[in-house]
């Protein structure tokens, strides 16, 4: 009988392994028509968009690198990246990560899943990994498709960087791919917020919308004249900070800070989501989330993270103001002007001149009255001076600058028209506007070590 008793006692079933649960979650995600549609759209639409826009006479000059879409196929992926950071990635994270837990609430399948997998921890890990995989697939599609579209429509030409210097096609390719890799960090942060919303708010539509709402809030914050420390302390800054890769002296500090902040948000939001999930009572089939819990266990800790990050960034970088200062604007404008002047000289078949020979400088003021030349605004007015070899008198040109709070500026030539007026120049890809007429640049919000 002893043997019979021993046989009859059944061991506790082992939980399903994470790889198996992960495969199951992937099967469920990929079987959804909206996920399939998104994958298809992300792998096709950007390429078509870039190819179509690159062949139009009017370019999206308001978007960074948009004005160079006729010149090189590498501008298209960067225009797509700018658009993706603002709209596409927050929405994609909403649909994928923001729904990965809530969908089980909607379908009433939690109990079934728990009985089968037997571990809330492993379900969490599998769901997080599966949504991450799908997001990576979507981001890879956006990047890959826009690169292919740009290269097929325009070609593998050098790219004009944000300070006017030319990147070889190889450099451009490397930096474009690096820029896309960098925005994975804020995308992960939004995905973690999506997980948190999905866990906390259950079937409530707010869970699905949370990443998009948070991203929109952060974008609005980035548009306000906030101190640079606050700007850098938000994970959304990493959606902008990749700009710094496209200057000859790469502006890595803001980019690294943005990435670290994003990863900190990713870890904290994921840990919060995990803690809430494993404590959830699954005996309630119709879980609609708890507003109070969303605030106390979700919003408040993340607000605390923002406060701490602002303090740390301010203390370690000294970035307490807007970061847009007169000397930085002047130096940045002069650098871009010198690089583009050299390009213009070549396009006009004039004797070649180097940036060192030009010795370009800029003098900038802000506003028509005597106010401190500091901060964002469209009332910056600058005079650029330069020297040509063998010519004693310095050349001068006037620019109106529109500087946005994130440090990006658009310079608009205001004479003389022979230098920075609108006229066409001949380029290997056909006629193009005078490069000194209107151009983009950026001001690094943090003080560089040279300063």
């Amino acid at each position, binding site marked *: 009988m002893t043997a019979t008793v021993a046989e009859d006692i*059944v061991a506790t079933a082992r939980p399903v392994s994470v790889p*198996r649960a992960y495969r199951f979650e992937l099967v469920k995600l990929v079987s959804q028509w909206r996920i399939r549609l998104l994958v298809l759209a992300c792998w096709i639409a950007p390429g078509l968009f870039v190819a179509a826009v690159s062949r139009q006479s009017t370019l999206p000059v308001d978007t960074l690198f948009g004005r160079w879409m006729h010149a090189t196929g590498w501008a298209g992926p960067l225009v797509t990246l700018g658009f993706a950071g603002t709209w596409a990635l927050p929405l994609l994270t909403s649909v994928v990560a923001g729904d990965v837990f809530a969908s089980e609430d909607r379908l009433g399948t939690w109990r*079934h899943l*728990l*009985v089968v*997998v037997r571990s809330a921890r492993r379900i969490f890990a599998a769901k997080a990994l599966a949504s991450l995989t799908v997001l990576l697939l979507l981001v890879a599609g956006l990047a890959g498709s826009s690169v292919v579209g740009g290269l097929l429509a325009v070609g593998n030409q050098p790219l004009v960087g944000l300070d006017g210097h030319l990147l070889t096609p190889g450099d451009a390719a490397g930096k474009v791919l690096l820029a896309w890799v960098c925005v994975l960090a804020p995308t992960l942060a939004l995905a973690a917020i999506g997980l948190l919303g999905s866990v906390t708010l259950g079937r409530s539509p707010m869970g699905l919308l949370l990443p998009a709402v948070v991203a929109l809030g952060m974008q609005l914050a980035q548009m306000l004249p906030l101190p640079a420390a606050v700007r850098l302390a938000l994970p959304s800054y990493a959606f902008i900070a990749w700009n710094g890769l496209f200057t000859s002296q790469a502006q890595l500090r803001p980019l690294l800070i943005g990435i670290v902040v994003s990863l900190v948000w990713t870890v904290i939001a994921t840990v919060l989501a995990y803690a809430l999930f494993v404590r959830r009572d699954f005996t309630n089939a119709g879980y609609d989330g708890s507003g109070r819990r969303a605030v106390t266990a979700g919003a408040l800790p993340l607000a605390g993270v923002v406060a701490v990050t602002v303090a740390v960034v301010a203390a370690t970088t000294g970035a307490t103001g807007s970061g847009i200062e007169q000397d930085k604007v002047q130096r940045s404008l002069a650098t871009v002007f010198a690089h583009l002047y050299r390009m213009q000289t070549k396009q006009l078949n004039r004797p070649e001149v180097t940036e060192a020979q030009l010795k370009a400088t800029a003098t900038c003021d802000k506003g028509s009255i005597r106010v401190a030349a500091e901060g964002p605004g469209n009332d910056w007015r600058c005079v650029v001076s330069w020297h040509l070899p063998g010519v004693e008198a310095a050349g001068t040109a006037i620019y109106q600058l529109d500087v946005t709070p994130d440090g990006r500026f658009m310079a608009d030539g205001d004479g003389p028209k022979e230098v920075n007026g609108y006229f066409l120049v001949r380029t290997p890809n056909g006629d193009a506007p005078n490069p000194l007429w209107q151009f983009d640049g950026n001001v690094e919000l943090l003080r560089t070590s040279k300063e």
Partner: protein
Amino acid sequence: MDTRLAVRARGITKCFGDVVALDGVDLDVARGQIHGLVGPNGAGKTTLLGLLLGLAVADGGRLEILGTPVQRALTAPDGVAGFVDGPGLYPSLTARQNLTALVALRGRDAGTAGVDDVLDQVGLTDVADDQTRGFSLGMRQRLGLAAALITKPRLLVLDEPANGLDPAGKKHVHGVLTRLAADGTSVVLSSHRMDDLQALCSEVTILATGRVVFSGPLSKLAAENRELDYRLLTSDPQAARRLAGDAAGIRIVDDTGARHDAEALVVRALVPALDELVVQLVHAGIALRELAPVVSPLEAAFLALTEPKETGR
């Protein structure tokens, strides 16, 4: 530890905040037995089924499933399967994909796991490759049963498995459950339908407000010393009514409801008194054409045990 029992629960309590869902519940389910769990809404049936599936852990008491004590959530032993609050199905997957994904989760091959076999058992072979999005409630129930069967359970826990089933589907499911029990699988199922329980279960447990008010064989429940309403159709209704009115232990129920025609006589009595009335009717030359309880003994017992006692007016 009684290893002949698939489930042995003693003094199980479970609370949700201030609400006591289960209050000192005892339950024994033998191996190979189909055990019914009945009770009004909110009686604690789903909570108890959830404990058996390991979804939650009791706040107090002792629960052994398949001979193994269960002390933490999600630690039910291998061999327990089933569903509560409806089967968990993914509408974007076909019936076959739902089952294939399930067996893949358990590290088994869909071909050898018998996906086609269980689909055939529950009568869903024809719709195996259709998305479950368009399935009726009955089809979903059957697929949920298939999902449980594919794990080759030793204890099957089902919450209202006959919900939404048409008569043919119900017969199909009953056949599956009966065969499982014959093969040694224990089945615990909840239902509001007494005919299902009578057709399937050898024992039932009746819960009311979290407490067990009856547990045992159906025959014992039906034979409890309780007065029932019986409907009699005789060849002479007037004479039968007079006899019933004079008979000891018989009360005529003045039921003029639509379901009783004028020829019918409804009396309330214990079985011995009813037997005596039948004898008297026959001696008086009155033919007895029909004699049946107005509600089944099981249902009557259920109502008597679970309906709140009326306070004296």
